[in-house]
C-alpha cells in the first residue's frame, strides 16, 4: 500500500510542465523504480506525482542529420540495449545499462530517471560522463542544454528547477565517432545490486598512440566524475602495459571515495585502481590494440 495523495497523468511534455507548476509539491514519476521506493519508505515529498510514464514524446532513440545521437529521457533500459543505433555507435552504453537491476527493472526504469535521481551510483551516468553527453531540459517556454558533468550538483541534487523536465540526452559525433569504450561495474552481486564502483573508459587511438582518453567513475566521489589529471597524463602516450600501471597510480589523485558501512575507502580505492587498468585494457582491445 502506498500513501499516495495525488496522481496526475500528463499527456504531453507541456502538460507535465503545467501540472508541475500548478502543484508545487508534486514531482515527476517515470518508471517509478526510485520514486516508489522512497514513497514506500515514507520519505516526504513523494506523495504527489505527475506521471510521465510511457509518454511517447520522451520515448525515442535517433540520429539526427548532424549525426547527433538523441535518446529520450523516457527510454527504458531494455530499449537501449536492443537499439541498433546504440549497439552500433556506443556499445559501452549497452554494457552499462545491461548491468542495472534485473530484467523487470530494465523493462520499466528510464535513463532519465536514473540521472534525475542524482546518485553517484547511477549506472548509466559514468558512461554519459565519458561521452560528454548534453542534457536538454525544458521548462515553461524555455529550453536549455546542460553538459552532464554540470547537471550533477551534489548527492541527490541535480540542476532541475521547478517545472522543468529533462527531455533528451544528446551525444555529438565528435564524442563517439572513432571512440572505443568499456564499462565495468563492480558490485557484490552480478545483478540487483548497487555499484561499489562503476568505471567507464572511452578512448581513441591512432598508430598505437592514445589520441583521446576519458575515464569516469561512479561512487568514487559524491557525484559521478571524470578524472582530468589521469586523462591528461594518458593523452598522446603510446599504448603499453606500463601505461596501464601508471594509470592505476595517477587515478588515486583524481578520486575521493569514502568509507561507509557498505565498503571502506581502502577497499574502494583498491577497486578503483584495478578497474582503471581493466576497463582501459578492454577498451584498447576493442580499439584493436594489443596489450
Amino acid at each position, binding site marked *: *500500500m502506498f*500513501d499516495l495523495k495525488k496522481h496526475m497523468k500528463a499527456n504531453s511534455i507541456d502538460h507535465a510542465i503545467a501540472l508541475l507548476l500548478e502543484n508545487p509539491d508534486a514531482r515527476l514519476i517515470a518508471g517509478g523504480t526510485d520514486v516508489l521506493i522512497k514513497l514506500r519508505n*515514507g520519505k516526504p515529498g513523494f506523495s504527489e506525482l505527475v506521471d510521465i510514464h510511457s509518454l511517447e514524446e520522451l520515448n525515442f532513440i535517433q540520429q539526427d542529420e548532424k549525426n547527433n545521437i538523441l535518446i529520450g529521457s523516457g527510454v527504458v533500459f531494455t530499449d537501449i540495449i536492443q537499439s541498433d543505433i546504440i549497439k552500433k555507435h556506443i556499445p559501452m552504453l549497452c554494457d552499462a545499462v545491461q548491468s542495472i537491476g*534485473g530484467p523487470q527493472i530494465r523493462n520499466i526504469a528510464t535513463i532519465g530517471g536514473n540521472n534525475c535521481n542524482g546518485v553517484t551510483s547511477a549506472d548509466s551516468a559514468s558512461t554519459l560522463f565519458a561521452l560528454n553527453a548534453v542534457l536538454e531540459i525544458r521548462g515553461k517556454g524555455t529550453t536549455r542544454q546542460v553538459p552532464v558533468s554540470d547537471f550533477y550538483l551534489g548527492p541527490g541534487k541535480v540542476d532541475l528547477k521547478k517545472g522543468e523536465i529533462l527531455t533528451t540526452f544528446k551525444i555529438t559525433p565528435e564524442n563517439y565517432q572513432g571512440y572505443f569504450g568499456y564499462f565495468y561495474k*563492480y558490485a*557484490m*552481486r*552480478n*545483478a*540487483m*545490486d*548497487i555499484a*561499489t564502483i562503476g568505471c567507464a573508459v572511452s578512448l581513441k587511438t591512432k598508430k598505437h598512440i592514445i589520441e583521446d582518453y576519458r575515464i569516469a567513475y561512479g561512487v568514487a566521489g559524491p557525484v559521478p566524475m571524470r578524472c582530468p589529471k589521469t586523462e591528461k597524463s594518458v593523452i598522446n602516450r603510446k599504448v603499453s*602495459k*606500463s601505461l*596501464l*600501471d601508471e594509470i*592505476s597510480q595517477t587515478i588515486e589523485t583524481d578520486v575521493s571515495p569514502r568509507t561507509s*558501512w*557498505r*565498503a*571502506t575507502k*581502502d*577497499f574502494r580505492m*583498491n*577497486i578503483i*585502481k*584495478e578497474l582503471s*587498468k*581493466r576497463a582501459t*585494457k578492454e577498451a584498447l582491445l576493442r580499439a584493436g590494440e594489443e*596489450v
Partner: protein
Amino acid sequence: MAIGKSVNRIDAIAKVTGRAEYTEDLYKPGMLVARYFRSSIAHGRVKNIDVEKAKVLEGVEAVFTFKDVPENKFATAGHPFSIDPDHQDVADRLLLTRDIRFMGDEIAIVVAQDEIIASKALQLIEISYDEYTPLILPEDILKKDARQIHKGSSNIVGEHQYSTRDLQVISGDVDDALEKADYVVEGNFETVMVQHCHLENHIAYAYMDDLDRIVIVSSTQIPHIVRRIVSEALNMPLSRVRVIKPFIGGGFGNKQDVVLEPMVAFLTLKLDGRAVQINLSREECMTGTRNRHPFHINVKTGVMKDGTMVARKMDAISITGGYASHGHAIAAAGGSKQSSLYPRMATKFHARTLYANIPVAGAMRAYGSPQVIYALECATEDAARKINMDSVEFRLKNIARQDDINLLSGKKILSCGLADCLLKGKAFMDWDKKKKEYEKCKSGPIRKGLGVACLSYTSGTYPVCVEIAGARISLNQDGTVHVMVGATEIGQGSDTIVAQMAAETLGLAYEHVRVVQTQDTDVSPFDTGAYASRQAYVVSNAVFRAAADLKKKILDHAGLMTGKKARDLNIINGKIVDTHTNAFLMDMKTLAIDSFYHKERGCQLTADVSHKTTTNAPVFGCTFVDITVDIPLCKIKINKIINVHDSGIILNPVQAGGQVHGGVFMGIGAALSEELMINPATGYIYNNNLLDYKFPTFMDLPQIHHDFVETFEPTSGYGNKSLGEPPVISPPPAIRNALLDATGVSINSLPISPHKLFTAFKKNGLMVSKGDADV
C-alpha cells in the same frame, strides 16, 4: 510403481497458474491490520509510553502496550511438548515487553483499518527509555558484572558437553588422545547471523467463528504446535484454538517458531472476534522474526602421520540474541554431527548458548549443523594439509562407514554411502587431473583451487523429541483415495511424496491419490510439522501402515463381493486382480460403489494411523568445488560445484534435485556473501533488506550439479532418509578449503566476502598492485 519416479508435483499447476491460495490471498470482510511498535534501542527499559494520540487517530481501532498483555511468559520454539520438565523450552517471552532486548523488540501494537493508518499511528506514539549498554560480543556478555538480559539467567541459556570418555563408547579421553597424536591442529572459526529469506514473509490473521473459539490462519510449518503454544500464551484450552495452514511460500525453519499467532489471537479476543491480520514487511521479517545463530567454535584435532584422526575437541559458543527461542537445542544438535561423521575417534564437544542484544535466532535449515560442520570440515582440511595428504583420501580414511557405532547415540549406523559419495564426486570433478593442472595456478593475480567437505545429518529429532506422524486414507466413490496427513507441505514437496507413497502401497495410480493440501487442526491428523528434515522419513511409517491397512480392507471387501479369499487377491494398477489366475476382477470404482451403497455389506473404507518413529537414520553427503580467485578484485568465482548425497532411496529424483539445488544455493550465499551486519556498539542492523543483504541472484550462481548414492534404510517406510536440510551444510567449508588450496590463505570466518578477502590478502602480502600481471 510411484516411488522413485519424478511425477509432477501435486500442486504444480495450482502454483504456476497462481490459483494456489496463500494466507495473504485469504480475506475476511472488515479485517483489521495490526502493526508493532518496535524499540529503537537494543538494550533498555521503557520509562514512559504515551499512546493517546495514536488511539484517537481516525481509523485506529485500538492500541495495546506491554501494560495490556497477560503477565504470562511462554516459549516460542516449534518443538513438540516435552513431558520431562527439564527438556521444556525456555519460557521467556511476553506478548509485548517493557524490557528491551534487541533493536526491534515489540513494545506496543496498533490495530487500524489499513496499514497506512497503522503506520501513521505508530509515529504518534511517544516513548522514553532507560538505556543500558548493548551486550553483543561474547566477552562482554559473559563478564561477571554484565547486566542480565533476562533476570536470573546469567546470560547463558544452556550449556552441555559430551565426551567419549563419559559415554564409554570408545575408549579414551580426548586430552590423552591429543597428547598422543603426532600433530595437533587448532583453529578458531566463526559464523555470522544469516536469514532465511523465504519468499513469503510472516503473516497470520485470527478471528472468532463463534464467541468461544479462535481461528488462526497462518503461514506456519507447525500448525499443531501453534495451537498448543497459543493456548499456553493465552491461558485457554487447546481445543478452543483452531489453526489453518494454507499454501506456504517457504519457511526454512523461520516458521518453525510461533511468531505472530499468539498476538493475532490475543487481538481478536480483545476485539470481540473481529478478524485481525499481521503481515510483516521484509524489513521487519529480517530482524523481527528469527535468524541463524552466530557461532564461535574452537576445534582441536589430533592426527597421526598415517592420516588417522584420533581426537577432536570442540568448544562452541552459540548466540541466541534477545530471546531463547530454540535455545540451546541448536548447539546440541549441531555438536552431535561430529559423532556420526567421524565416529572412530576420541571426541569431546562442549557448548554454551548466550543471550545477546541482537535479533533473535531460531531454527534455520540444518539447525546448528552448518555452523558446527563448517568448523569441523575446515579443521579436517587443516589436519589433512598438516600431514600432506590428499583431502579426499584423508576423509575416506576417517569418515563413517556402515556398521560404525554413532558415538553419541550408541546406535549402529545401518546405512552409509558416504565413501561412495566421495568417490562419485571425485570422479565427477576429475579431481586428480585437476589437482595437477592447478598446481600451476597458485601464483599471480588469478589462482585456482579445489575443495571438498563432508556432512552428516539426521532424519528427525528422536530421541530428543517425540516423532509422531498421522495419516488417514479413505476410498472415494469413484475409486480414488483422499489422504490426510499432519505432515506439513511448505513448498518442499511433502504432499507429492505422500501421494507417491500411498499410491505405491495401495497399488493405485499416482493421479488417483489426492492429498488434502490445507491443514486444519480441527480435522488434520496430529503431526508436529515440517522441520528437522523429518517429514518424509517420519510420515513414511504412518502412510505405509495406513495404506497397508486400507489395502487389506479393500481386498477383504473384494473378497466379500467375489466370494474369493482376500489373500488370493491384489490391487495392480488400480484394479482388483486374482493373483492365481492373473484375472482382472473389477476396477476400483466398482468396488467403491459397492462398499458405499450395497445395502448390507461394506462401509466407507478408511484407515487411520498415528505412528511414533523411534529410530533416526543418519544421512551423509559431500560437496566438491572448483574455484577461480581473482586476487586484485577480491572475488571468488565458482567454476564447478557438485553435492553428492546418501539420503537412502530417492523417492522423486526431480524434487530431490530441487532440494539439493536450493540447499547449495543457500550454502553458496552463506559462504560468500550473506550476513546481517550489526553495529557492535548499538546493536543496529544495517541491512535488513534484500538490496543490502547479499542473497545471491541467479546471475551469481554457477550451474549446480548433484548426484545420489542410493542406500536402503531399513527403518523407514520406503528406504528413504532425510534430504531437506543437508544440502546447505557442506558448500561453505568446501569453498573455504578451495580458497585455501588456491591461495594458501585460510579464512576461518563466514562469509568470505570481497571485504574479508581484501583484508586477508593484504595481510598475507597478496595484494601487490604493481605490474600488468594484475590485469
